């Protein structure tokens, strides 16, 4: 019963937050916007094409590299818990693990995966 009460409180709080956010948005919204204001600022000219367009997400290689190292971080969490009892051996083993992965970073750096501009 207590958990049900807690869940109810959470639902009501979320609903209240939603209503508050809507009311606040209504207060700060730009009222009375005219058609000339619904155009991006280009310095006085009208854009001939609509602004919706696709552009190349050239940072995707960097994002994949981050994922790989995120998985390395996952391995470091349980290591961090037992590392003090295990002593220097654990430290050295983790350093070897990281060193192998750093070689991967150096390779990516040389292959210009970090230079997406």
């Amino acid at each position, binding site marked *: 019963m207590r958990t049900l009460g807690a869940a109810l409180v959470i639902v009501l709080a979320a609903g209240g937050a939603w209503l508050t956010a809507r009311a606040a948005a*209504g207060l700060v*919204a*730009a*009222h*009375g*916007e*005219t*058609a*000339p*204001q*619904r*155009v991006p*600022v*280009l*310095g*006085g*000219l*009208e*854009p*001939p*094409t*609509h*602004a*919706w*367009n*696709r*552009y*190349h997400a*050239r940072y995707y290689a960097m994002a994949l590299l981050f994922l790989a190292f995120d998985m390395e971080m996952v391995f470091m969490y349980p290591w961090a818990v037992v590392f003090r009892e295990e002593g220097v051996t654990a430290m050295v083993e983790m350093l070897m693990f990281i060193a192998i992965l750093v070689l991967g970073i150096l390779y990516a750096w040389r292959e210009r995966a970090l230079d997406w*501009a």
Partner: protein
Amino acid sequence: MMSPRAAAAGTIPRVRAPHTLLRRLAAGAPARVFLIEGRNAPAESARLRLSPLIQLVDSPRWASILLVAGDLPAPFAEALAHVHDQMPHPRRSVLWDAAAVAPGAQRVDGDADVVAAALHGWQGMLLAGTVETETSWLPDVDPAPWRGVGPFGQGGEGMMGGVPYGRPMAQTAPDRDGLDLDQLDVPIGPFFPPLPIGLVLRLALQGDVVQEARVEANGFEALSAAPAAVERGGDPFRRALHAPVSLSELERARAVDHLQWSAHVLRAQGLAAYGLRVLELAESAARADSRELASHALGVSRLRRSLARSRALEPSLAGVACLGAEAVRGRGLGPIARGCGVAEDARLHDASYTALGFAAVTTQGGDALARWRQRLAEAEQSLVLAARAGDAHVAARSIQEGPRGPIAPAHTPLAVQLALLPGLLRGAEWGDVVTSVLSLDLDMRDVAAGHSAPVPHEAPGDA
């Protein structure tokens, strides 16, 4: 999104009068002004930036006051209306020594401090509600309603169906990775700080990379027919074409121009406080006694050293907008050519300058950083010359060296500078586009009648 209540109320917005304390706090803040300097703008407008009462902003969306200083030609009227309508309410437009652009615009007069105080007062009145906000100058009509051809408004031509608000969707074009991606046709209009006022660029943008750039016709040419517009009384370089002018005054004006450009570049690169320091140095040099000019030259030299030491601008300027020496030689490009190592200067042919030991300063490199260093070195050289000149006068000649290159009664360097732009901008990212355009120091208002005639190239030894 407009709430249904506001939509039903029509287009005149109700500006809620804020609480008194909030009102007073807001009115005490610097007034945000979008400044447009046209032809024959009052010289005091350069000092507006130094006033603590106003803040000059780079976008109409951040402004509450539109200040038009100087004359704008008729082709810019519609662009001005767009910029005015993009300002959020409450807003006001103010004219300073300008022809009327719309009914109801207020006028101000006086020097920079008087105008700044007036604008600050206007903002206070707008926020207090004592003054009505201005309505739109353009009709509240979308170019076309959002409606396709199907029974529910869906479908039609274009990639996602339909032509939303009358603007077709972007089509694809090859990009630098060998893919076919969307390309937007973006016109960057005449009033787009920090780009020069009056410059209209049509860019083919993919993401933020410019695939192709075109420079549209200069709207300020419509003003060149007016006789008073051609010879600005306050411009010593134009005066020197017809009558002898004090060398000290000429070199001081040149140094002030270079320093104001440097401040503009610093602001555009994000170093606003540095830009203000340089602007204060420029203003103090413009007003100083001729005995104090030597100390201003020292000030510029200290500034150059501190900027070079801090390497603040190298990441943004180095390697950007490279020009080869062969591309600029013999075309009358002044500091741009000297920034590529080409020692061309109309002052070399002038006896008053050679008597003072004038030698053209050049910088190697040809990129934006070289041009930056070149202009600062020339500013220091000009102040040193101005301090040493005494009563020397420059004789009236048909070609004089202006701050942007050699000028003649019917010629300015502007056309040649604009011809360089498409090549510089191709393949550049947006940040480099702004850097490249600013490194050329274009002044679109500097249009003389018959500007298409090339300046005759002087061989060394000519009088």
